[in-house]
């Protein structure tokens, strides 16, 4: 057993610092000073692909920052998660971003990074509007076609589905925490919590660790700022 311990120590010393862990393939080596192939799913304000030009959004800009750091040129591949995630498994793509959550069911195809930011969805109110504890019968503006509609309907709230929450509805509204400020204040009703991750090819641990270092170094404020910029850009 003592031999085992000393072997372990030697291994740790050998690998300390120099490129550990390594990819099972060659993703990190290919990306560095090469091409970064990124799948983007539509999920504003995190990422979206306009009809013309490069994708936009908070995570898109983060990818650009990462690529710059690695000296990589980016190729964007907009698509659905169903199309993009299986492409990760066989290393046709190097990265998939677009508002992915740590709970996403793609772990058979992709490796999800450690969550780098947690965002909450609140019912927020403009100044002068109040939200009672009991939501039944309360009119609330909610982005149409989202799970929040169902969450509020189940509490008997009077859901006003809007294509886009602007904050000037004069009603309590459902928004991500980054939009809270002077114009909208959070109520006590927290509807959802999302741990945001990116997806990388499974087993490309050197590359994954590189991406995770980049993401974990981001502060919550930095991400909030990018999200606000993304909201403005739309």
């Amino acid at each position, binding site marked *: 057993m003592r031999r085992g311990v000393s072997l372990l120590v030697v291994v740790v010393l050998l*690998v300390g610092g120099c490129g550990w862990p390594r990819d099972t393939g060659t993703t990190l080596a290919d990306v560095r000073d090469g091409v970064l192939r990124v799948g983007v799913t539509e999920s504003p304000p995190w990422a979206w692909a306009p009809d013309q030009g490069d994708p936009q959004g908070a995570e898109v800009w983060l990818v650009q920052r990462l690529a710059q750091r690695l000296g990589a040129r980016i190729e964007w591949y907009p698509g659905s998660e169903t199309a993009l995630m299986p492409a990760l498994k066989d290393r046709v793509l190097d990265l998939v971003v677009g508002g992915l959550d740590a709970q996403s069911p793609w772990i058979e195809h992709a490796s999800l990074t450690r969550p780098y930011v947690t965002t909450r969805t609140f019912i927020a109110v403009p100044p002068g509007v109040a939200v009672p504890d009991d939501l039944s019968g309360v009119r609330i503006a909610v982005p149409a076609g989202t799970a929040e509609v169902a969450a509020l309907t189940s509490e008997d709230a009077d859901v006003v589905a809007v294509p886009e929450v602007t904050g000037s509805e004069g009603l309590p509204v459902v928004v991500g925490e980054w939009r809270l400020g002077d114009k909208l204040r959070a109520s006590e009703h927290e509807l959802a919590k999302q741990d945001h991750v990116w997806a990388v090819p499974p087993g490309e641990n050197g590359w994954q660790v590189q991406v995770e270092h980049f993401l974990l170094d981001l502060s919550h404020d930095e991400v909030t700022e990018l999200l606000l910029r993304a909201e403005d850009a739309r």
Partner: protein
Amino acid sequence: MRVSDRFELPPDKAALHRRAVRLEWWTILFFVVAITMLAVTLGQSQAMKAAWIEDMLGLVPPAAFLIAARYRTRTPTTRFPYGYHRSVSVAFLAGAVALFGLGGYVVYDSAMRLVARERPPIGLVEVFGQQIWLGWPMIAVLFATMVPAIMLGRVKQRIARDLHDKVLFADAEMNRADWLTAGAAILGILGIGAGLWWADAVAALIIGADIVRDGVRTLRGAVADLMDERPLVVDGSRPHPLPDQLLMAVLDQDWVADAWLRLREEGHVFAGELIVVPRPDTDSLVERLERLEKFARGFDWRMHDLVIAPASRIEGKP
């Protein structure tokens, strides 16, 4: 003659057995802690699932031992006239099945991972604000579970030999299997870190094959026990010397012309039948037979239940 008693182990062995019971409680505690520690460090990964199943199976032999320990000394009843000694044999079977199941699962799981060419992802984790590769804490936890498993296994094996306790022996094998799989997992994680995606599965496959071999041997032993195989030493490697020694001692009695003995294991103790052919003109045969029974039981603590029948001739010995 007295046809039933609760006695099973002599005082020194009983003390050893109490120690074994304490050890098994520690083992259960150890596995529960290990399961929790693995859950915390490994999160939702596939490796976690495998380790979890392994640790669950590791709970079977100590649980079987402790349950059997409650039953084994119960007095025979009209429903169970042979007593409850065999609860130990039943526990042995349960432990053997668990060991075999563990080996089978490890082989299946790692073979499937190889076939699917599964590439295990291991990323970063933040510990006290430091970003470190998750592989290191995983190795630390696995190493921490290895050390107690090795020590528990060693002590149990020694006690198992002294007590002639096969459940305990199977459990010691289980602990061995446990630290071996942990060792394989450590090698696997190092392999993954070095970019060898297959290292984990191959290491587990080799260890799994070893556990299966162990499991098959133990399972055969347990089934053979229930088939009333002649007593074997606790690791099943050779026949137990007691039956032959006892038969020699019986034949040495001056009034015995011929004798035949068959014994089976009932958990810790042996039971069976002795047929003796007295020399012609042997007087007070009943008293002699009763004395012989006392002699046999005093011969060794394992000799627990012996029915002696006189006969004029013995034929058809196997």
